[in-house]
């Protein structure tokens, strides 16, 4: 403590006191201090005195008594400056410009942004996954149906003609509705089951001409379907399986007895046929415009239709 004081303060006070003709005892009496304390003050021996806050006060009082500039002396003793610096002017315009809070704000907003980004990514990922699932089902279904059920012939009824006027749909063969389909007679049915888009009338005509089923071996038919319309789903023989005809855009979802799932969008005017083992759990969207038949028997969706969706189980 002593070393940081310039030796001046005590000496200056002592000189001023002597100049005024005062003794240390006089000063001690006036300041209500002891002579010992005055001696210590004049000798700059601050460690013999109480804490610095008191020493500064004593020096201030002493300086005032002997007519010196108190503040200059207190400054020379040091320490006081740190305290007086904290005084500020009246608060005009004094505001905390950038408290550390701004950092929090940045963190908060940044965190929020990252969170939103993650949510968006998750959403797109999930959505893509769903689409992939639907596509997968649509593509693999023919193969599955082919291998799982090779025996019955699988003539294809050219239902997916894009010309829209699907006469084939209208020729289900009621006789086939019982039991497994009879073995196909290869070569018997010469009518090409799958219409080329350009030659839509041909299949439309052919079922009309040969009433006992235009059929082809399944493998062949499927292959043809794939060649022409790779995206075409499972095709059931005309008049067999579930058959849908949509007046407007609609969709169907069918789960058959083996737990296989078919999801299809049917465009306006389109048809679709799904083979499988009963029981079928069927959900039909926009049901009012869809006609459904099973093995040629028309099924009225009306009783099963809720708002727009029909749900039923077909045994």
């Amino acid at each position, binding site marked *: 403590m002593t070393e940081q004081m310039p030796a001046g303060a005590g000496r200056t006070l002592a000189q001023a006191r002597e100049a005024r003709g005062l003794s240390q005892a006089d000063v001690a009496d006036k300041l209500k201090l002891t002579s010992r304390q005055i001696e210590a003050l004049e000798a700059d021996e601050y460690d013999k005195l109480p804490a610095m806050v008191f020493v500064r006060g004593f020096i201030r009082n002493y300086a005032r008594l002997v007519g010196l500039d108190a503040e200059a002396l207190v400054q020379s003793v040091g320490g006081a400056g740190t305290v007086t610096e904290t005084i500020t002017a009246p608060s005009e315009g004094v505001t905390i410009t950038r408290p550390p809070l701004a950092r*929090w704000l940045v963190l908060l907003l940044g965190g929020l942004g990252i969170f939103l980004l993650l949510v968006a990514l998750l959403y797109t990922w999930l959505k893509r996954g769903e689409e992939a699932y639907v596509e997968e089902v649509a593509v693999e279904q023919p193969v599955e149906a082919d291998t799982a059920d090779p025996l019955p012939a699988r003539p294809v009824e050219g239902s997916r003609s894009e010309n829209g006027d699907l006469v084939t749909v209208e020729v289900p063969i009621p006789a086939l509705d019982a039991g497994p389909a009879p073995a196909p007679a290869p070569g018997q049915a010469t009518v090409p089951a799958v219409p080329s888009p350009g030659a839509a009338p041909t299949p439309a005509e052919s079922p009309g001409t040969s009433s006992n089923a235009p059929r082809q071996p399944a493998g062949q038919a499927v292959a043809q379907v794939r060649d022409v319309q790779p995206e075409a789903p499972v095709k059931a023989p005309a008049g067999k399986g579930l058959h849908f005809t949509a007046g407007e855009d609609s969709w169907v979802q069918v789960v058959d007895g083996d737990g296989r799932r078919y999801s299809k969008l049917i465009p306006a005017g389109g048809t679709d046929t799904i083979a499988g083992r009963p029981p079928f759990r069927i959900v039909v969207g926009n049901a009012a415009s869809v006609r459904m038949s099973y093995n040629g028997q028309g099924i009225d969706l009306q009783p099963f239709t809720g708002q727009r969706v029909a749900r039923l189980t077909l045994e």
Partner: protein
Amino acid sequence: MFGFLRGYFSTDLAIDLGTANTLIYVRGKSIVLDEPSVVAIRQEGPSGKKTIQAVGIEAKQMLGRTPGNIQAIRPMKDGVIADFNITEQMLKFFIKKVHDTRMFHPSPRIIICVPSGATQVERRAIRESAIGAGARQVYLIEEPMAAAIGAGLPVAEATGSMVVDIGGGTTEVGVISLGGVVYTASVRVGGDKFDESIINYIRRNYGMLIGESTAEAIKKEIGSAFPSSEVREMEVKGRNLAEGIPRSFTVTSNEILEALTEPLNTIVSAVKSALEQTPPELGADIAEKGMVLTGGGALLRDIDRLLMEETGLPVIVADDPLTCVVRGSGRALEEMDRLATVFTND
């Protein structure tokens, strides 16, 4: 509900809610606000709603100069709340002023000073008004403790320190040792009483009426607490009671000394009674070091001489006495966890 969140957007404050001035210390900064505790209220229409016209310095300039529909109010009296709602509004204004953020309402933790003589009801009122002004949490600290910390006294040591805080409304005398208050007394005499005494003295002796601001100016200019060889004069303007016309006249420092004798005697007797009640060991410490004056009253000329002569003990004036209390509260705020004992529990 979002208090903890809003806490991030608020800085902790120490407030010296004084009768004359309100000072605010911001944690990690320093004193950022020092304004008079005055609120000017405008009333629209005879029974219209009241709106706040000005707070602080601006309002103080209106004090005693307002037209009929504006009222300049000092909501604090004798160190405690006299008008609860106005105090709350004033605090709200000041708290908002020291917060720059616009997005959230500030919700700071606040340390606020109370006179040691404040009753439970008065303490409650101060706490409630701070909460009403948006504080998340309010801690109360007794003024003598805050003043002692602010003056730099060794409060935590096993040695007695005596502090006399002469504020606007109250004078607090405290003896402190080991971080606790050993003795404390509060008399409701302070700068306001000095002004009042000057007003009364001039009315009695000169037949002149002066306002509070003029009285305060006289006190600052030529007021003193101890006779000195140097006599100073000041020209004052006021209204002559007999004629009803403004006149100017001259008062001297000796007259003001005479006017101040009564309130000063109250302070001296409070100090003496504190010394009587102090345990002898601490009394010895005080005799060695003396007592420390803080608060605006410590700036009254020769008030330390007066106390020195009356008690025979050394008396020193703290560095920057006006801000001691708020600086002390500020240090308590900075070291909240370590200095937990200095807060009062109620």
